[in-house]
């Protein structure tokens, strides 16, 4: 029954990939889910073709929000910045590969929100629309 706590989720939550902010970065954003207190800060570095070459992030929150950040960070490296702008809720849920209960959707989507804010070069993520 521990559907949401699959081994790979726990592994990402425990050993977050790309942890630590990039000193030299082109894009940066941070945001929080005020209701649950989850926080995330993301930095991105791109090459001359706007391909993402490095991701660095730090955050705090539940296993779902942290695992999602770790998995999304891995996912976008090597992809054009433009593609990241097209990522949506379904993309994240597919990436996580677990059934997310209604009350945890926001946890799962925080990293998407912040990485998009970074890609659009918004210092703070857009306001938090449910």
């Amino acid at each position, binding site marked *: 029954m521990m559907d949401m*706590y699959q081994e790979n989720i*726990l592994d990402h939550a425990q050993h977050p990939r790309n942890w630590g902010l990039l000193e030299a970065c082109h894009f940066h954003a941070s945001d929080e889910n005020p209701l*649950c*207190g989850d926080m995330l800060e993301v930095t991105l570095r791109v090459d001359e073709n706007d391909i993402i070459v490095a991701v660095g992030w730090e955050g705090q929150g539940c296993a779902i929000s942290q695992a999602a950040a770790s998995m999304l960070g891995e996912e976008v490296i090597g992809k054009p910045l433009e593609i990241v702008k097209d990522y949506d809720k379904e993309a994240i849920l597919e990436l996580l590969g677990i059934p997310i209960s209604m009350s945890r959707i926001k946890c799962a989507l925080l990293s998407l929100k912040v990485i998009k804010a970074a890609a659009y070069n918004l210092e703070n993520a857009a306001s938090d629309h449910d």
Partner: protein
Amino acid sequence: MIDINAIRADFPILHQEVHPGKPLVFLDSAASSQKPTQVIEAMNAYYRQTHANVHRGIYALSEAATTAFEAARDKVQHFIHAAHREEIIFTTNTTGSMNLLVQTWGRANLGVGDTVILSQLEHHANLVPWQILAQEKGFTIEYIPITEQYILDLEAYQQMLNAGNVKAVSVAHVSNVLGTISPIAEIAHLAHQAGAIVIGDGAQSVPHMPVDVQALGVDFYAFSSHKMCGPTGIGVLYGKQHLLEAMPPWMGGGDMIRKVTFSGSTWNDLPYKFEAGTPAIAEGIGLGAAIDYLSNLGMNNLHTYEADLTEYAHERLIEVPGLTLYNPEPVMCGGVATFTLEGVHAHDLAQILDYEGVAVRAGHHCAMPLHRECLKVAATTRASFYLYTTRAEIDKLVEALYTAKTLLGGHSL
């Protein structure tokens, strides 16, 4: 005495598995309690046999509906020992009661230079309405701090009163996060000496202990039906008659008027002045049935039963390695246990407990500033108890905590 098996038989919802093989262990009554058959059936019967709009309907159903609805008001009056039935205003819930009070009494009485005292442990329902009005009217809000024992610092409170210009003191009788039972009678006495009125947020007290608003000495008192075995959609504001009479109305509409012309209106008597429009009739009747249910058990019995459970819960919980409890000692604590578990985020914890059938609440429990600015955590997990909670359920909670620790506890996030 509480016959726990008989009580549990009255609550149909408790007898289910929320996941295969996982019977429900409902530990979120502080958010909203479950309802006994007696309450559900009272509303059912009302809709099947008696419903009609109340007040001034000259026919049998309407008179029967009015009688039943107004009988509920009498029950509320006696339950909280109010002096007059006119002092019982039906609202939507505690939040509605507080907003009514702030928007009428507050708007009429507060201005620049005035102070309203709240406390650090208040629910948003007793923070945000005051903040909104303060923005408009320019009065000051001060917060009674909490001590390291999670109780209100009454010395600091006395100093706030001494500073003068305090017009109102509004505090939770029982905190929904910490469980803290505050000495409302003493707080009221000190406030009155300083010339301030006193408002009690009774959302977590009225369901769990005998409350006598006259003995407490409060001027206003607010609570919700849905936390005390009653239906959603109705709450109560108690107010002293002379204060209610001096207050302007809040909502305009049917029932709250005496006379309406195209150029202006005059108001009805109490309590109707504050009850505009078709009331929550079935909900009033359901609340009346809930009060009958609780009164039959006896609020003293219930409080004793819960106090014992709470002590047991705290004892069991502090045994869990890495668990921090955010409650005063059981004797000053309502039926809650609020905690964090090292290395496990509150949301993950609630999720994993749910997989075990255990329903608890995780988050800031609508007391965000308490969490961020006092407890310095973003979220806690709260297990809350009621008349249908058993020791065995607390054991299951503890067991499920170990499961969560095993799964996640290794990972310091």
